[in-house]
């Protein structure tokens, strides 16, 4: 637990008063939603041959509840870290089983995955990475502008965050790709995607950065200024490093979200991951294969970002943890 209070509470699920009602609730839900009618029922049919209808439903609910109960019983006896990992892995396995149940053609996936990665993933990564860098710079400028005493800068920054947080990202992409050519400025598809993502996420992140900077007590600024440090040094050496603790978690969210929102640029025909997933499946009516593959690739990339975020958080927290 984050806040240690050194009291040995018995783990919730080890108390019968909690454990049994939880299992009862699991049972009731399975029974109510008729788990026995679907894939779970077909699995249970192997154990109780010949059962059907309400009987099968009841048997399914009972079997699954017992499995869950046994699982909790076992997991509760492991050390904390192993508990976390095991539960994570079990849930991941369930999701993969869910995908597996689609009866996918792995031969098709194998044939296409190379192209999906070398063309689609690379493009997605390229667009996201460049956009992340530009959005961060925009956010920093935007936040400093909002906190400045320069009316023009404040006006621009307020309008910027209002417009680009207010318009749907899809609309922004169209405005750049289809609207700007009306003025005689033609922008290619990939730069369009990068521009739209950077501007949109820069606007969200401006607010994150502003709130992060404002969360630092003004005594920090005063002390640094009283020591004679210049405003730029105070910002980069004193204020920003401290506000990182506040800025990083929501920024990690934004990056993960941007990674997936980069799929929106497929509407202007960029051959990124989602576009290829849609088009490659079409020819052989293997949509699901490509969608599942693309989804898993997105998930893997998000996990990498999550891990990176965690490392950076640890780095900026080191002074705060005793």
């Amino acid at each position, binding site marked *: 637990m984050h806040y240690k209070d050194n009291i040995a509470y018995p783990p919730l699920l080890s108390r019968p008063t909690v454990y049994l009602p939880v299992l009862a609730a699991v049972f009731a839900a399975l029974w109510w939603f008729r788990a026995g009618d679907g894939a779970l029922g077909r699995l249970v049919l192997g154990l109780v041959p010949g059962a059907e209808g309400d009987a099968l439903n009841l048997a399914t609910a009972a079997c699954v509840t017992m499995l869950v109960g046994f699982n909790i019983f076992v997991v509760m006896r492991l050390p904390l870290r192993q508990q976390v990992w095991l539960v994570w892995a079990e849930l991941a396995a369930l999701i993969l089983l869910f995908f597996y149940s689609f009866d996918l053609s792995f031969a098709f996936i194998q044939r296409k995955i190379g192209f999906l990665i070398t063309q689609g993933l690379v493009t997605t990564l390229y667009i996201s990475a460049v956009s992340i860098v530009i959005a961060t710079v925009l956010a920093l400028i935007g936040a400093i502008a909002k906190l400045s005493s320069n009316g023009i800068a404040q006006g621009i920054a307020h309008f910027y965050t209002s417009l680009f947080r207010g318009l749907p990202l899809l609309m922004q992409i169209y405005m750049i790709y289809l609207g700007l050519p009306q003025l005689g400025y033609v922008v290619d598809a990939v730069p369009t995607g990068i521009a739209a993502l950077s501007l949109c996420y820069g606007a969200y992140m401006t607010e994150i950065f502003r709130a992060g900077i404002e969360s630092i007590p003004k*005594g*920090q600024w*005063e*002390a*640094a*200024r*009283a*020591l*004679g*440090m*210049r405003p730029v*040094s105070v910002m980069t*050496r*004193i204020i920003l*490093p*401290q506000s990182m603790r506040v800025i990083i978690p929501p920024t990690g969210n934004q990056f993960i979200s941007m990674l997936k929102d980069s799929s929106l640029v497929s509407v202007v025909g960029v051959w990124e991951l989602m576009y290829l997933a849609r088009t490659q499946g079409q020819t052989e009516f293997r949509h699901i294969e490509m969608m599942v593959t693309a989804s898993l690739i997105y998930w893997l990339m998000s996990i990498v970002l999550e891990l990176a975020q965690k490392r950076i958080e640890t780095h*900026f927290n080191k*002074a*705060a943890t*005793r």
Partner: protein
Amino acid sequence: MTSAQDSAPPAIQITGLNKWYGLLQVLHDVNLTVTQGERLVICGPSGSGKSTLIRTVNALEGFQSGEIKVAGLRLTREPAVVEEIRRRVGMVFQQFNLFPHLTVLENCALPLRLVRGLSAAEARDRTMHYLSKVRIPEQAAKYPAQLSGGQQQRVAIARAVAMQPEVMLFDEPTSALDPEMVKEVLDVMVALADEGMTMAVVTHEMGFARQVADRVIFMDAGRIVEQGPPTTFFTAPRSDRTKAFLRQVLH
């Protein structure tokens, strides 16, 4: 920068200073001269404008009329002037205001490198010298959150003094401390005074005032009501406000 008109201009010279917060006037025609090497203690009830007064000296607060000179340099709002004044004036705050993301060593060394242009090694050496003076060189590698309040305030003093200012301002440096830590901070300040540092100290520690002050100033409602050497200030206060205040702080 320094005007050569006077061989030894006063460390701080404040004339006709007025300041308002909106309609509330918090400083009324304040006149105050602190000579080189003088140890000044400022006291007065809460809200009387003590913090505001010393914070105008290094431009942490602005003011509407009057004049402030620090070692002969007139304080304007020009960046170069303000920065020069801040290099001459060190400040210690009630809330310490150490930089929590930097170690004790970095807290002191960073401004030395950025403002005084010292090399990393020079900044380190000078920091260790001043940390020894406040008697906590062994804490150099720790983060502020790992220190007691008294230790933190001593680091804050070392950080300000290491910049080798001409004047030190203290705004209630012991008010946020537990009683048993007050003494260790006051001892450091006494030692600093003994070395001849010019100091203006806002404090309610009347023992400190008696021991080191050359002059005590009593403020009330934005005015300097009474001032004098500690002997006369404490034994023969003239105004009723001062008497009432002293009865409270001396019990």
